[in-house]
């Protein structure tokens, strides 16, 4: 422990700053991504199993009709209701 602390103290200031910067960037990006995908209180909205879905669409058990009422590119300013 003492040895690793010592090594840490020996890091050149530039490398330490870079390490800190990268860590902060990682935290920010992860947090931002999480906010984008999961503003809904349910933290992890499920993903569709695309293979199974395609199979089900082909079999006619589920449909694939474009929905009313959504925004493309929700982080942008476009709030047009589209079909």
């Amino acid at each position, binding site marked *: 422990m003492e040895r690793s602390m010592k090594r840490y103290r020996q890091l050149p200031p530039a490398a330490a700053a870079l390490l800190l910067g990268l860590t902060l960037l990682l935290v920010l990006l992860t947090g*931002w*991504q999480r906010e*984008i*995908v*999961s*503003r*809904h*209180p*349910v933290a992890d*909205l*499920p*993903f*569709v*199993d*695309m293979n*199974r*879905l395609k199979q*089900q669409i082909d079999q*006619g*058990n*589920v*449909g*694939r*009709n*474009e*929905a*009313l*009422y*959504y*925004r*493309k*590119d*929700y*982080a*942008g300013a476009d709030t047009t*209701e589209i079909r």
Partner: protein
Amino acid sequence: MLGLTPPRSVECTLCPKTCRLAPGQRGDCRVRYNDEGKLYSLVYGKVCAVHVDPVEKKPMFHFLPGSGAFSVATAGCNLHCLFCQNWEISQTDPEDANNTDLPPEKTVALAVRSGCASIAYTYSEPVVFYEYVEDTSTLAKKRGIRNIMVTAGFINTGPLRRLCQVVDGANVDLKGFTEKYYREVCFGNLRTVLDTLVTMREEGVVLEVTNLIVPTMNDDMTMIREMCRWMASELGEEVPIHFSRFTPMYKLKDLPPTPVNTLRRARETALDAGLKYVYTGNVPGDPGEDTFCPYCGKLVIDRYGYRILKNDVVNGKCGYCGETIYGLF
């Protein structure tokens, strides 16, 4: 944001959950998903329950009594009530349901052929099969068939107003009267449902309200009184309310069924609060199933369960005193 917006992401604006979806992700309702930047409904015309019911089963007691309602549902729901009475279809992915292809034209044709006066979008949550409700209702209206939504009312006002142009009647679940209850038991919010009720009333939809009384969870008479007073002042005293009996189901199997006395007390509370048409539900043979004229007090519609034994409403008026009875007759 900083040009880092993930491509092809969408935000569903149908209901207040406003699910933000990355490509391949589906909404909290399970039935709307983002495919490369476009939002798709997986359940348009894919019906997992279809039945001809008496309209009284919805329950709609003031909407063409004694008529048949061609009832359809798809998988999915945007709420997740712990007591859900239809959880097998409402809380499942459409891929896991056994669906029948029933496009709007076919649905309307079957409703006509079966002699139904209305099509009811029911059992699960019509909000999540919005596009199918709208297209089917539009066609049905042209063929002289009425449309009924049986819904929890968890929808944004814009889409709701649009749907009200083609929907004639609605039974809206008012599941409780506190935000805490809606948040913790239903995973929604009360404010939206109240707004829905007011909007539907403004839009001229024949409205009825159902309150499922769950023992120990929403059976407080003070809360029920407050709810009924709100209804009387914001919707009008004539909007009917049904206090429905809970059956242990889904995630609340450890609770007992609602005691009939609780339903009767709720009914008395609602009448005291000024509501004119108050019913008990899921208790066949209870006097709370009947309609009494609020002006002369006479029994005008006698029911047993979903059956009409006598109907003395004539052209929408009490057959005894001639006063108008709320609803569509």
